[in-house]
């Protein structure tokens, strides 16, 4: 069907254009923005391939990640002018293009040589209908039994009126992930957990016991003998001590005068 090709072409072209924008734009915020658009368009291609779940996760996870990236850009970099191309370091300007071209060649080789791509390597062929893709997807990614087994899980046929068109790839994916690929999944989760713990350890505030060694009671309103620096209490204490000192000096002066 021509329409499907048209939609694919729109998504693909936009993905390429926005990916180029990611590399070319000078302002890092513009780069982050075009990365968001690139991911959105790739999600569109996923939907055309019948992988709705991956598409949704693509938008959900990656856009959230880019938001954090965006915040890093705003907080850590000088916000407006980015580095222009001629001021890049040698590593960036010299090795970057080489690595990029090498990766491109790899991808092209993979696409051309192997049966990796569904439907004979041509996504826009007219016979690449939804049905053919589903069949290919069934043969390629998920064994037939899993889909059959996953069917009743999603349908639950108890409530009348529920139709079997609810069989998505999501249930099949979940079943595969938690049975066949359980070990890699758990390894990946542990790696992520370690990263999260590492981030917390690095970013945590120093414990109170560490602090008390050199700066006792530094934060907030202090009830101790030495108030926090710059707090209202500190001003008050300073005022009072200076007043009492002045009073003492005045007393001394009066004593001296009396003498």
């Amino acid at each position, binding site marked *: 069907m021509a329409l499907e090709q048209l939609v694919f072409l729109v998504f693909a072209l936009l993905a390429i254009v926005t990916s180029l924008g990611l590399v070319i734009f000078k302002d890092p915020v513009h780069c982050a923005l075009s990365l968001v658009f690139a991911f959105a368009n790739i999600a569109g291609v996923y939907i055309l391939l019948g992988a709705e779940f991956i598409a949704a996760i693509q938008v*959900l996870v990656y856009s959230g990640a880019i938001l954090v990236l965006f915040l890093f850009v705003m907080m850590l970099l000088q916000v407006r002018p980015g580095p222009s191309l001629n001021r890049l370091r040698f590593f960036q300007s010299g090795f970057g293009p080489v690595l990029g071209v090498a990766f491109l060649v790899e991808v092209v080789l993979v696409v051309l040589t192997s049966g990796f791509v569904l439907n004979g390597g041509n996504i826009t062929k007219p016979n690449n209908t*939804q049905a053919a893709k589903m069949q290919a997807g069934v043969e390629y990614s998920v064994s037939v039994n899993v889909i059959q087994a996953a069917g009743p899980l999603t349908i639950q046929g108890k409530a009348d009126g529920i139709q079997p068109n609810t069989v*998505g790839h999501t249930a099949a994916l979940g079943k595969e992930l938690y049975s066949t690929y359980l070990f890699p999944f758990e390894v990946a989760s542990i790696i992520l957990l370690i990263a999260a713990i590492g981030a917390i350890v690095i970013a945590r505030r120093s414990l109170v016991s560490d602090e008390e060694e050199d700066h006792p009671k530094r934060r907030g309103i202090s009830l101790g003998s030495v108030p926090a620096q710059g707090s209202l209490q500190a001003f008050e204490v300073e005022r009072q001590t200076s007043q009492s000192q002045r009073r003492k000096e005045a007393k001394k002066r009066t004593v001296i005068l009396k003498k």
Partner: protein
Amino acid sequence: MFSSAQFDWSLGGPLGGPSLLETAAAVNAKVNAPNEPFIWFLQTFITLFVIMNVVLLTMAYQTWAERKVIAFCQLRYGPKRTGPSGLLQPIADAVKMLTKEFIVPQEADRFVFFIAPLLGFVPAVAAFAIVPWGDANTEGLFGDWIRPVVANLNIGILYMLALSSVGVYGIVMAGYSSGNKYSMLGSLRSSAQVVSYELTLGLSLMGVLIQAGSLNLNDIVLQQKATIWYFIPQFVGFVCYFVSGIAETNRNPFDLPEAESELVAGFHLEYSGMSFGLFYLAEYINMNAIAVVAATLFFGGWAAPASFLEFIPGPLWLFAKFAFFLFLYYWIRSTLPRFRYDQLMGLVWKVIFPIVLANLVITAVVKIVGIQLGWWA
């Protein structure tokens, strides 16, 4: 995605025997897609047209309702000059917005400044594409010219969450591109808030997902119709969802990103005319989306509460539930004072997050044990 007319359904299934494809074909041929792709597109277009108009009109009159409810809470009259009891006020507001000048600040990042309102507005409206106002497996109104749902997605909940995670870009971009410190502060606050609350928003829906065993909104409604509205077994999840939803849409008492008294309105400070109007629309439509999803996932959507009430059509039930949640929004707004920033973050990470995690685990365990013991239907 597309019409089943493109599909070669005579294709033998890979399974031998009645395949997945054939059953799906039977369903699609019966309900979702007529034979002509052109007619299918026309139907989609008409459905979209109707739903867009309903959404925008609801939004317009919801501002009127909000003013009236808040005025009632504060012992005032609210709008009453324009039209009978102020009913023409939303239209007057719209005309005012459309005729105002669009000013771009000198410091603004022009391109981003232009597209930021669109980035906020589009995801807000797109959320309504998946909300069913009738049984999506049956024929819609006028011989299916207005379908019960625009897109009966199998990944409904994930789609909703993905849109809500994209929606914050409008706010962040607006704050960044305005070239204004207050806007920047507002957008930074907003992004931290939305990133935190998005997590609990998604996790609080997972209980419903486990119970229904589906991500499809229509299936979830049918399950509720057959068993019980999920706000009873999932009450904890519902409360957490609604609180997170209020925070996600930057409404009172979580409206720190646009705190008038601190940030002069935050991220949309530099916007004027219809570009401000788009932010205004986006905020209210996001609110509507949270309310309508709460009604669909927890309160049975278009399903009537009892079988003898089924003579009232589904859209009216959905609207009634939706209106109840909107009233809840206004009620909360006129009752509670704004949170402090550390309270806001403490609430989500130290209170709501552990609660929704516990809810998720307990729901899963109860379902598995229930299936083993045969309690589960």
